[in-house]
């Protein structure tokens, strides 16, 4: 038998640096600023871009720092796309860019010049719901509703991705055709957090739509 794995527990050190002195800026930036602190941008800090959002062309002049999410919500006032974390950790901001779902919070608007964006507003309206939206209502696939647009944008893409043969973490055989199973849907939807816990109902909604489209 092989010998046991040898290791030694690392001892904790009492951190010596005095926080009272070391910590500077209040949002958390420490006083010893990084070397870039004194640097300045070498060109324009804003840009003019054209986005096609829900089929409509929109010209925007925006701060380069503006995310696609904030461009939608603040500049274009399309607030159906939600900000849950702003760090790619929740999926509430999911929309599609050129047909693919992305986290719009982790993408700069300036990088989408000429792109086609679809948001929940372009999917359907209260009086004319898309089948996925209707299935979410019929299956009570939400509670507070805040993650819901992102869930629906993801759900629509998930069905397309499965049909397109894109594998997932739970795909058993990477070389075989991918089946529309509960597990495939759950895994692919896992980038959309619902703290209200409507997952089982969301699965039912997606399954309904998948069956109708089959």
């Amino acid at each position, binding site marked *: 038998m092989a010998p046991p794995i040898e290791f030694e527990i690392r001892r904790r050190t009492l*951190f010596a640096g005095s*926080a*009272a002195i070391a910590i*500077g*800026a*209040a*949002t*958390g*930036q420490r*006083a010893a600023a990084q070397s870039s602190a004194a640097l300045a941008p070498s060109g324009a800090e804003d840009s003019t871009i054209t986005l096609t959002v829900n089929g409509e062309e929109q010209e925007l002049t925006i*701060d380069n*720092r*503006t995310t696609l999410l*904030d461009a939608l919500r*603040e500049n274009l006032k*399309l*607030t*159906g*796309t939600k*900000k*849950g*974390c*702003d*760090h790619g*950790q*929740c999926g509430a901001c999911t929309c599609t860019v050129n047909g693919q779902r992305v986290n719009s919070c982790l993408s700069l608007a300036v990088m989408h010049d000429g792109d086609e964006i679809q948001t929940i*507003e372009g999917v359907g309206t*209260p009086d004319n*719901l898309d089948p996925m*939206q209707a299935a*979410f*209502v*019929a299956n*009570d696939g*939400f*509670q*507070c*509703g*805040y*993650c*819901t*647009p992102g869930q*629906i944008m993801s759900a629509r893409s998930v069905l397309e991705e499965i049909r397109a043969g894109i594998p997932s973490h*739970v795909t058993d055989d990477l070389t075989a055709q991918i089946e529309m199973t509960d597990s495939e*849907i*759950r*895994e692919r*939807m*896992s*980038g*959309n*957090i*619902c*703290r*209200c*816990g409507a*997952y*089982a*109902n*969301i699965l039912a909604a997606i399954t309904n739509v998948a069956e109708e489209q089959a």
Partner: protein
Amino acid sequence: MEFNQPAGDNMFDDSKVVGKPTHRIDGPLKVSGQAPYAYERHDVAEGQLVGYPVVSTIAQGRITNMDTDAALNAPGVIDIVTALETGEMPMPSDMNAAPLFGGAEVAHYHQAIGVVVAETLEQARAAAALIKVDYEETKGSYDLEAAWQEMREDRSDPVSRVGDFESAFEAAEVTLDQEYRTPSQSHAMMEPHATIAQWQDGKLTIWTSNQMIEWNRQALATTLEIDPDDVRVDSPYIGGGFGSKLFLRAEAVLAALGARKAGRPVKVMLPRPMVMNNTTHRASTIQRIRIGAQADGKITAIAHEAISHTFPGGAGENAVDQTRRFYAGDNRLIVKHLAEMHLPEANAMRAPGEAAGLMALEIAMDEMAEKLGMDPVEFRAINDTQVDPEDPDKPFSDRHFVECLNRGAEAFGWGDRNTTPGQRRDGNWLIGHGIAGAYRGGPAMDSGARVRLQPGGTLIVETDMTDIGTGSYTIIAQTAAETMGLPLDAVEVRLGDSDYPVSAGSGGQWGAASATAGTYAACLALRGEIAKKIGTNDPESLTFENASVRTGEKQMTLASFAADGEIVAEDTMEFGDFRGEEVVSTFAAHFVEVGVHVGTGEIRLRRMLAACDAGRILNPITARSQVIGGMVMGVGAAMMEDLAIDKGRGFFATHDLASYEVPVHMDIPEQEVIFLDTLDPQSSPLKAKGVGELGLCGVAAAIANAVYNATGVRVRDYPVTLDKYLDQLPAA
């Protein structure tokens, strides 16, 4: 009107709308992105600026200087408000323990100490990073284990004592004495705290995300030292709360102060990485449970002693409360300790008390059943009580816990479960089954509403009640439709505005029972107005159905009464003291099946079932959603959620949604919910109670028990993660 005696037979016993599965009336707005949440209300105020919070980077101490020069000169910055400039502000309410803003004192990590107001988010955020703050830091203690060691034997001030616990425990044939640990948890609702504030002529309006409109209005007035009548709060859609939005929070104060100083509307959303430390959380606990029983399984002695941390002056997590009433036993001891720490403020999170308490108690019950050689379902059933064990003259109003156990066991197939821990396998997976009981109070709060019958025959209901995903819009519409004999689509519900009558709000799972009662009261007042128009002072002689009123042979459409203008009626349902003469509570039994990977220890849930007893179920669709959602949160509590404390520096290190893990789709298996067909006339005119918190209670323990059943390793320290049992699993 007053609810001053148990409800007799009434219209809800023969209902056409209430109790029927009804899709959310706000659903189409939510699925199309049209429901307006707080931060996105561009239409309510012109010229909105953006405020970005500045937060403390130490846990405890004093601010000695805030240098805002660079920030003030940064592009787009309009103004900055600092805590030093406002000075100490009045505490918003006696429900807030930690100050939200103002003054040099730093009470906890990420406490708000300033707000930068700029034209855009990008500008405000960048400028906030330029503010330099100097502190004098005070070293605090953040070690709950150490506090527990100090206090664990102190029983000088028990919550309650009945009989002689010590002697009975000593004499018991079978005993259990164990400690359990639950971590701090974060609400982690999907919508961060957000507010738009606008001042006009000395009056403040906030568009915000808050569960309790009137509390919020009063608290804001108190802390800003203005007349509550000069504050309007509007919160029609709330992206989840779970207790985190019960009270006024810092972002609303920052928006109000920023708007006042800048002279323009200001909106503030708390950045996600600040949410965990700036706002409230469920405190971690250490709990000791001792149970003594006869060989036949009857509990003779039960003691639950617990400690939790709390911000000085706060209440911590009351993990012992359910143990006072859940199970029988003549000799009882309940002790609660608080360890004051300058961590962020511990406060209510969904099912405060019971959620953490049952995580421990229901493992203890499982362990005790095993010691007794009894089925854990049976052990719980024989210790059921129909009276308050601390006060046997006080009955439960309506308690069907045993039926929950039995119905659930049957539907789940409990009889076919694995009975020997660690002995059932499916390939690489060890299969286990677990059960836990659930108990949560069924409170009610006074709740008002106003109804407006429109000339066209539709009805508008206005109340400051909130819908945090619970389904308030829908059950209020159902109640109004039922009471007025209208179809559901003739009712429009308006919520969350402090211009509307004060309601119970959303908290403590009291919302549904209370707000529907308030709606009922307002509708009865409207029926009274219509009776007057007909010329009778006996509204009960009238029949309201099919959008018409019938008296004798005469029938008139409801619309006809408002032909000359809307009819408005308003009332509040006040819950009388009689309600407290009995124990009004809700009950459930949770069953789960898990697989534990024999090699890696990974847990995968395979199925979950809840059987619930919560009085009349007002809307089986939304009630079921409440319960499955609670079960999901229970999965998080059992398997992953841990607001890990850095005990050296006094803050929650896992302060974003990547490091504070909550369940994702892939974690959740098939879920089944059974509602017992019960009515609780003591609770409300609709004989209803809440389910929103019940769904969470006990779930984590059921999973922990199932993991034990699967592996034979008992984990008493949540979350039940593989590092706590891996080395005790059999060789792969």
